[in-house]
């Protein structure tokens, strides 16, 4: 087993864990964290793939940087939506 | 002569590193096991200051260029500063929101 394969499998494992969390959990903040873990899993697969050549693959690294920024944008929006949603439920009660 | 010096330096460096690691572990155990927030803060800050304070000289002995030393010094100063600030804030927050623990 090579290092690349090791991290590929680790990435897939994190992705599955995140997916499981997204499906099974109900608390909004926890679900948002699950999505982030799932994302980390995909990124790990991509970074491991970048490691295959002697010099690491800059394309995959650039794509993961893009992915990270997309992830934080979506997380910020989702968290605000979750918090404001909870507030409004509380107000109604 | 230089070989002997190297050996001493390496030994010294590793013993410093091991001591640093010990303080980190002790601090973590303290964080998990101590009863109230002040004790925990005490344990954690000891770990940061002493642990890092031992780790960094240990690493510095193995450094190969002066700018590495500068970086290590900067790391040490920054962690000390932010650790102290964070600890003070946590303690002050705890004190202002809760009733005092032991002394009135």
């Amino acid at each position, binding site marked *: 087993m090579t*290092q*690349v*394969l*090791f*991290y*590929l499998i*680790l990435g*897939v*494992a*994190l*992705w599955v*864990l995140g*997916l*499981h*969390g997204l499906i*099974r*959990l*109900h*608390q909004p*903040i926890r679900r*948002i*964290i699950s999505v*982030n*873990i799932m994302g*980390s899993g995909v*990124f*790990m697969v991509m*970074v491991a793939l*970048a490691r*295959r*050549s002697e010099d*690491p*693959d*800059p*394309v995959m*690294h*650039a794509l993961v*940087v*893009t992915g*990270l*920024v*997309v992830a*934080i*944008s979506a*997380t*910020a*929006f989702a*968290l*605000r939506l979750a*918090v*404001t949603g*909870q*507030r409004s*439920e*509380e107000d109604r009660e | 002569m230089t070989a002997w010096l190297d050996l001493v330096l390496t030994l010294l460096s590793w013993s410093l590193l091991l001591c640093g690691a010990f303080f980190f572990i002790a601090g973590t155990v303290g964080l998990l096991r101590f009863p109230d927030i002040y004790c925990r803060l005490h344990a954690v800050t000891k770990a940061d200051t002493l642990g890092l304070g031992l780790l960094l000289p240990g690493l510095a002995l193995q450094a190969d260029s002066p700018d590495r030393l500068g970086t290590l010094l900067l790391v040490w100063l920054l962690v000390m*500063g*932010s650790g*102290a*600030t964070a600890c003070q*804030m946590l303690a002050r927050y705890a004190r202002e929101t809760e009733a005092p623990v032991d002394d009135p």
Partner: protein
Amino acid sequence: MIHEWLLDGSLALLILTLAVAVLYVRSLYASIVLFIAFGLLLALIWARLGAPDLALAEAAIGAGLTGTLLLAALGRTPVSQRAEPAFSGARQYVRSGPAVVLSLLIFWILLQAVLPLPEQSSAVVRAAEQHLDAAGVAHPVTAVLLNFRAWDTLLELLVLLLAFMAVRQLLPSLPRAPEAWPLLLGWSCLLAPLIILIGGYLLWRGSSDPGGAFQAGALLAAGAILLRLTDLLPAMGWHHAWVRLLVLGGCAFFLLVGLFTHWLGAGFLAYPEGWAGPLIILIEVAATLSIAITLTLLVIGETREVRG
């Protein structure tokens, strides 16, 4: 050899334990703190896999800003709604059985799919290496981000802008911060110039070494958030023209570059010969400022317009 595997193995074990703990630990607060640790560990893994750019970005964005956002969200979540309704007892584990089996099945199928991948190689990498000289910057990741695949980066700036616009319509995320204590004030005053210095350094370094607009922007945002929370920085309301200009500047400048390159005949987003270097630096500066301000506003959320 064996100590290499020792390192990889312990990293893997730690990250898996942390991931499971983050998802299923009982207290939401603990979950968030563990998630920040997860982010830091991930940064370590990126460094281990030879991706220092990502390690920087992950430490600043993944662990730092996401952590702040999560803690702010936790602070605004009523205690009654923090609990996960699923954690009710042993029966829960029986009921989650099918989901676990399904997950294992998915894992198994994916395992089969990734097994042959390490032997393959990529044509894109070879092309990227071949054309690096013409890209205008020496660091390959920056070359991909701002030249070879500049359109992705432009769209990603739009994603950030869109998230900001979406958040703008909702309530501010942080309650008004209490007056800062003197020690924090002093430390922030000391830290702020350093952060600006390091941010600028990262941006400048990005053309030849790991670093670049996103890392610099995230770091600057962290500094700005600190200063804003201690009231050392004036409020950044959307009604100030300079705030709008800075937030929109990155996308707008990038799009204008695209428009003009198309107009001048070189082709959409194809920088004219000899101009690639300077243009990329200008775009990076605009993007860094945009990212810094947008992330700051996303976290501290002073963006709601006063409606008359």
